[in-house]
């Protein structure tokens, strides 16, 4: 039973988070920061685009390094 539960949890983890959990964590943090800044008088729309560029760059760099290292 516990093996089935683990497999079920594993499926949803793979489906939602995928193979780079840092991207999911980064998106969650960027959304939290956006929410926090949006409660002030400062514009918050630019935070997520900046986060996407940083997250994509880091994720691609990690993938290239893992492929290049024997």
């Amino acid at each position: 039973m516990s093996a089935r539960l683990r497999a079920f949890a594993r499926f949803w983890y793979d489906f939602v988070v995928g193979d780079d959990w840092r991207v999911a964590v980064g998106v969650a943090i960027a959304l939290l920061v956006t929410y926090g800044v949006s409660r002030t008088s400062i514009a918050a729309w630019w935070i997520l685009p900046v986060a996407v560029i940083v997250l994509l760059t880091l994720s691609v760099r990690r993938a290239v390094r893992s492929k290049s290292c024997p």
Partner: protein
Amino acid sequence: MTHSALFLAVFLACAVEAVEALTIFLAAGTAGNWRSATVGMGGAVAVLGAVVAVLGPAVSAIPLRGLRLVVGALLLIFGLQWLRKAMLRASGYQALHDEAQIFERAVVAARGVSHERRAFVTDWYAFTLSFKGVLLEGLEVVFIALTFGSNAGNIGLASIAAVAAVLVVAATGFAVRAPLARVPENSMKFVVGIMLTGFGLFWGAEGAGAQWPGGDAALPVVVVAVAAVAFTGVAALKRSHAAMPEPARAFVAGRR
């Protein structure tokens, strides 16, 4: 969002998933028993129908801002992963997605196992392979159609786009009776990655309380900006890949 942009985004994303589901179904039928593979596919479609029946009204009942936050986050996570893989493929760091090769591998794997009879199913392996493949790819189709449709306030059009994509792929697959290797799947995945990331960015920021300059008019600008970032990244990756010696290039492309 314009109707055509919604239709195009959902149609392309669902067509990519349908092509992958078709490859698995064809492998299950070719290596095993067609009837069992078809029953497996039918079972998966029935489960997906139940998921839509339960999730559809539930998603519609969620307040729009909360929905945009959750859906935006999920689309961003999905989109960034699609985009990363598409960039690696386009630059040569990862082998291109090849349906014909995937089909051959699945057929070889299916021929290496026993095809026993269980309950009402003649070939249990073909049944489960087809059921799981169609269900997994179908869940993504359902997710894309429901999230795009509910956020755009037009679940009907998103559903039509999803069903149209599945029907076009299924009809083409039935006509050629082979994996759709000629579909420009790698380019489609690149476009879908850009769209998922762009829409996720737009809706996620709105859901978190941000206001885009220009309101809804910012959406196409965001999508174009994501495309520009992705193409710039591919150009940089191509340069670094080209600078590698040939044996190293072949080595990294072959690694998953």
